[in-house]
């Protein structure tokens, strides 16, 4: 074995208030995953059993901020990751969940837990184990500095692949025509 083994880049990912569509799109690199695994190792991600993030080179986050737990995890990621990437519409601008921002929380709460079709009882979940919701859904860069943004809902797998290959190759990531999309 080569004595000067090239150290793998350590990558963590998470979905905050996301739908996992960006993670799905990441997995849409298909067999390129095996090539990627030559270069990176995973820290905390939905695919591994590491529950708390450690020191990482790259952190990739999909999903916006909907509750206090999301903010806590985001801050942990920023603290532990050299490079932080916001991926997808939700992380970048709040995305579809931010459609609730023009409504009041008590109103939504009332409707879903008291007047909704087919409810056997009306009560609002309030156990301390449940994270405190935010009054408005926010994007990531309002709370921490974000180094790169990959747009899309979700971004195409090729855009995610290009961005990662650029960063791993020591280049500033650039997406050309066809890889930048917002839908």
């Amino acid at each position, binding site marked *: 074995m080569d004595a000067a083994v090239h150290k793998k880049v350590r990558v963590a990912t998470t979905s905050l208030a*996301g739908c996992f569509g960006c993670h799905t799109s990441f997995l849409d690199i298909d067999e390129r995953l095996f090539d990627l695994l030559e270069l990176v190792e*995973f820290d905390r991600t939905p*695919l591994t059993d590491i529950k708390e993030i450690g020191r990482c080179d790259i952190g990739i986050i999909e999903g916006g901020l909907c509750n206090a737990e999301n903010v806590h995890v985001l801050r942990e990621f920023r603290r532990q990751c050299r490079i932080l990437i916001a991926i997808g519409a939700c992380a970048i601008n709040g995305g579809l969940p931010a459609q609730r921002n023009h409504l009041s929380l008590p109103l939504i709460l009332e409707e879903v837990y008291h007047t909704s079709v087919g409810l*056997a009882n009306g009560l609002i979940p309030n156990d301390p*184990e449940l994270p405190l919701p935010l009054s408005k859904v926010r994007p990531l860069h309002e709370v921490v500095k974000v180094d790169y943004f990959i747009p899309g809902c979700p971004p195409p797998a090729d855009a995610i692949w290009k961005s990662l290959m650029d960063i791993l190759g020591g280049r500033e990531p650039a997406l050309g025509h066809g890889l930048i999309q917002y839908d």
Partner: protein
Amino acid sequence: MSYHLETAAQPANLRRVAIDTVSRVEGHGKVTILLDAQNQVRQVRLHIVEFRGFERFIQGRPFWEVPVMVQRLCGICPVSHHLAASKALDQVVGVKHLTPTAEKIRRLMHYGQMLQSHALHFFYLASPDLLFGFDSEASRRNIVGVAAAHPETARRGVLLRKFGQEVIRATAGKRVHGTGSIPGGVNKALTQEERALLLQDIYQIVGWSRDAVQLIKQLHLQNPALYNSFGICRSNTMSLVGQDGGMDFYHGRLRARDGSGGVLFDGVDYRDYSRHIQEEVKPWSYMKFPFFTAFGKKNGWYKVGPLARVQNCDQIPTPLAEAERREFVDYCGGVPSHAPLAYHWTRMIEMLHAAETIKDLLHDDDIVGSDLVRTGERAMEGVGVIEAPRGTLIHHYRVDEDDLVTMCNLIVSTTHNNQAMNEAIRNVARRYLDGREITEGLLNHIEVAIRCFDPCLSCATHALGQMPLAVELLDAGGARVHALARNGDGSIGEAPG
């Protein structure tokens, strides 16, 4: 209605252990376990901690946006929501029967989704536990570890999923969050090139799907004591079944069976779902607890998904999957299995059925047809029900004269399994954790039970709660300077401690 191990009598005296967050599932779930001084389990809960509020903020949107918007409930099963919403809105635009091309394109999209979702779950999420052991080394217990130890298995998993995603791309326009299905039909059929490309690989895909059934069958048969009893949660079951009682993921009527397999209701038009199903709210989870109204909260809860569907139906209409179903049913001795680990075997049978059905649809000339949309007499309400990978999915909308949504009710697949998942983890906690020192491997046993259900926790929640709030003022050294708390009743006072 509170079950055994749901609420401890005196929680203040108990020690809390948490799995935060459950890994190798879609979405965010947290398990809390309360133990007494003898390490006996006194309370186990699966908390679903997400809320987004789709049912509310979709109101006021034009109804034709809905099939595109609701996909953002979930990035793994967006097609389920795309099609359930489309089916509901077919009724709103007055279309009772789609054109042959439209129905087959939607079916192709849906069965493509079944294939990719089941492949993702089995190979990427569940296989590490099944291949390495539930308390195997944590750093290896993932798809990377599987790729290192079983490279061909991992490769096939990736390619099975890839094929399903390509079927979706050809029919929906994008792999994730496409736009192919619209109220009244579809907006695109397959081109001859797309059809030819998919036909090239489909036989290999059918073969690999069949191999996947053999793999899980082998794992199950090698360890029957574990697979047949781990996390047992006996319950009713529910699914759609097709015209002749056969398995049909896209359309059918509701059938429910009791724990022994006897029929509770059958042939139910799913537009009447609200007469048969009610939902209970508990304070400790954002996800509701559905039950069959006629049987009450205690006895009315039920399982959905592959274990329910394979055992609910009379037959599977494709030959290889049907042969596997018979073998499974014979293995269970003609009585229904309630073993969560049997979800994996039945999930792979469904994946094989999806592959065979895709093959049949690709050979059907209707899928390159040009008659795509129908119109009819406009109505004000629609219900769309479909069998998503994880279980029965219900979308219900009301639309006003201005074409805007005025009501939305969603019962998402994983929600139906809420009580079952809680029962399964209580069973596992009692059996594996009672009286023992808690290790990471033992906690993973709880997660293994949850993973059997392939939960889609993002889908399953729509609402939020009013929280007690504590505010702490810390100085630069982290020492607490002051603290206030808003209690659950809204009053504000000094925080304890």
